[in-house]
């Protein structure tokens, strides 16, 4: 009995005792002088370490942007790599301050897992990748196939739903990380690899022969990916939410990494002036200073620049903007006004 209790207690200690998760994450981060940012263990284009061991990518840039807003420098980030299974525990236990990890917003995660989602930074959907040699042209032809699937993700649930709805069977091959999925898929342990379509494109880009693999046309789910923070700290949630919004607003207003310094000296456009802090005191209201947005844009670029640099058509991953275009171009990226 003592053994049981001590076991539970030891686990409780390990899982829950956190370095004092207090209500004011913003103050904690400022006091620490470093942002702990939860990212994936490695997904090319989104968050990965480059040849110099530096974290880079679409999601990693948001971490740097957030650090720039709060701490003044995009380098003051400690990246916390997590698997699909460990990410929420890492956030809730205080190991990380914010989660930028291709995470799908769902109701149960919002309500039951006690997370606060702050908006969408990438509209995605789940797809399937198969080798051309299988001669498969639709996901409905996959009856009896072995499917590699990352455990602990929404894609795992969508996969079960899709095959059940279509009355076909499959063998799930559970894997932990994208890298493991890639290895098993290429070794032929599974016929199909399924994850978010953006993730498939990113993974395929790293293959020796990307042309030998096809992403099937079916997109079987809605996967709005976005950052999350712990529930119950509205001030910190606001900071992350407005870093997310301000890069979208910047693209809409034509503020870029290149011209932000010039525009920050003041313009005739009050919308730009409010974003860059030359009019109003939105930075102070947020608990930051007035130049916060200038630093964000200088560090990570506006939404479009971040997209193009990391995952856009000119990169190996070659994703089109699609749903992620500005609302003025028929996409869904729409920032509430800074006013």
């Amino acid at each position, binding site marked *: 009995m003592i053994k049981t*209790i001590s076991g539970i207690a030891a686990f409780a200690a390990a899982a829950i005792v956190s370095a004092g998760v207090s209500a004011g994450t913003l103050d904690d981060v400022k006091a620490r002088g470093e942002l702990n940012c939860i990212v994936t263990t490695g997904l090319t284009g989104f968050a990965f370490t480059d040849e110099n061991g530096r974290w880079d990518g679409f999601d990693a840039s948001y971490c740097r942007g957030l650090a720039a807003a709060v701490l003044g420098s995009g380098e003051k980030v400690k990246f916390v790599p997590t698997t699909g299974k460990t990410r929420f525990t890492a956030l809730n236990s205080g190991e990380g301050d914010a989660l930028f990890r291709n995470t799908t917003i769902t109701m149960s995660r919002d309500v039951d897992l006690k997370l606060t989602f702050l908006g969408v930074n990438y509209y995605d959907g789940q797809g399937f990748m198969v080798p051309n040699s299988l001669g498969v042209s639709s996901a409905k032809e996959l009856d009896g196939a072995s499917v590699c699937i990352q455990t602990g993700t929404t894609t*795992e649930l969508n996969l079960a739903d899709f095959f059940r709805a279509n009355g076909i069977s499959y063998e799930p091959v559970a894997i932990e990380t994208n890298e493991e999925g890639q290895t098993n898929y290429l070794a032929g342990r599974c016929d199909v690899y399924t994850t978010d379509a953006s993730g498939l494109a990113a993974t395929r880009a790293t293959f020796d022969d990307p042309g030998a693999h096809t992403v099937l046309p079916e997109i079987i789910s809605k996967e709005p990916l976005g950052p999350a923070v712990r529930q119950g700290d509205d001030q910190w949630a606001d900071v992350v939410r407005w870093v997310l919004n301000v890069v979208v607003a910047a693209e809409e207003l034509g503020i870029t990494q290149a011209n932000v310094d010039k525009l920050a000296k003041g313009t005739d456009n009050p919308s730009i002036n409010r974003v860059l802090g030359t009019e109003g005191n939105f930075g102070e209201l947020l608990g930051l200073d007035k130049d916060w947005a200038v630093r964000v844009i200088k560090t990570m670029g506006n939404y479009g620049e971040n997209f193009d640099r990391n995952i856009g058509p000119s990169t190996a991953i070659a994703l089109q903007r699609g749903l992620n275009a500005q609302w003025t171009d028929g996409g869904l990226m729409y920032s509430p006004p800074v006013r």
Partner: protein
Amino acid sequence: MSTATVSSTDQGFSLLRLWRNKESRSVIIQIITVAVLFAFFAFLISNAATNLERIGKNYNFAFLWEASNYDISQTMIAYTSQSSNFQAMIVGILNTLMVAIFGIITATLLGFFMGVVRLSNNFVANRMVYCVIEFIRNVPVLLHIVLIYGIVVNVLPHPKAAMNLADTFFLSNRGLYFPAPEFGDAFIFVTISFVAGIIGAFLFARHAHKVQDDTGKALPVFWASLGFIIGLPVVVYFISGMPLEWIPATQGKFNLKGGMPLKPEFLALWLALSVYTACFIAEIVRAGIVAIDYGQTEAAHALGISSGRSTQLVIIPQALRVIIPPLTSQYLNLTKNSSLAIAVGYMDIMGTIGGVSLNQTGREMECMTIVLVLYLAMSLMISAFMNWYNSRIKLVER
């Protein structure tokens, strides 16, 4: 009683005086130790409770009855994504038990074999087994699991080109496929005769024991048991018209269809755990046999007991007394090491209730409590059984 004498001659109550007394001091120290331990655990538990409350979570097992919503590849009971998390847990328990039982049997057989070879006079065999043991047991078992999995997945052919024995057994990087048995209605008679055979063998063994006690004549118990347990069902099987068919797997569009597959994840875990544990068992067996003085063998021979029977009746029973306690801890190690299944995605207890269910429901505390209790229960059951067996074979002092 010295306490009473001291305190009766005491002028007044004094803590210092109490402390100087050897007996009361030991009581005080024990009380303090228990109190500190209790306070420590109380702090940990209340801390966990406070933190859970702070993020608005409760401690509640209702999620067990909700649909799990995920699929599992190896299931021994009927299971779909609409089954509950509880059923997913049962699947996980059965998968853990399967790999533990397969592993324990294989490790024991292999371990005894290697242990005996280690004692053989054949220099080459002896040294070869020694090298194998030293190599395998000095590498972490996790590496063995990942290595074997890597070999299965990367080296074995694709199912389309599966290695094939008589169109009955198939080996590919999707696993080892045995033919699946299909039982006819009359198979029930074979089952009944098998049970009857076991009972028959048991009764015969008792009878033989009695005959030997009374007359000193040894009856052929081994051959009779074999006849009862194997022979009888085989005869019934042919009489009832062979009501058992073996249906081999066939090529499907992606995978082999039908048959009884042992998946690569299972193969890797099973082989790695078996081989790893077998090396420890081999050394335990060797030590157990060496521990029996050669004089015992000579004494048995002097009494006119044949060589085979002296091994069976004199050496092995004594060696087992040395072997069983460390063997028990090897069985426990193997069972607990099976939780390394997570490295290759084998869906055991840690993979189901402690993995996917935990993650999809976000019930870390509850799931980990369940996992803890399950492993504890399993280990205690193995210990209890082995202790019972140990007490049965231990030296009876007369």
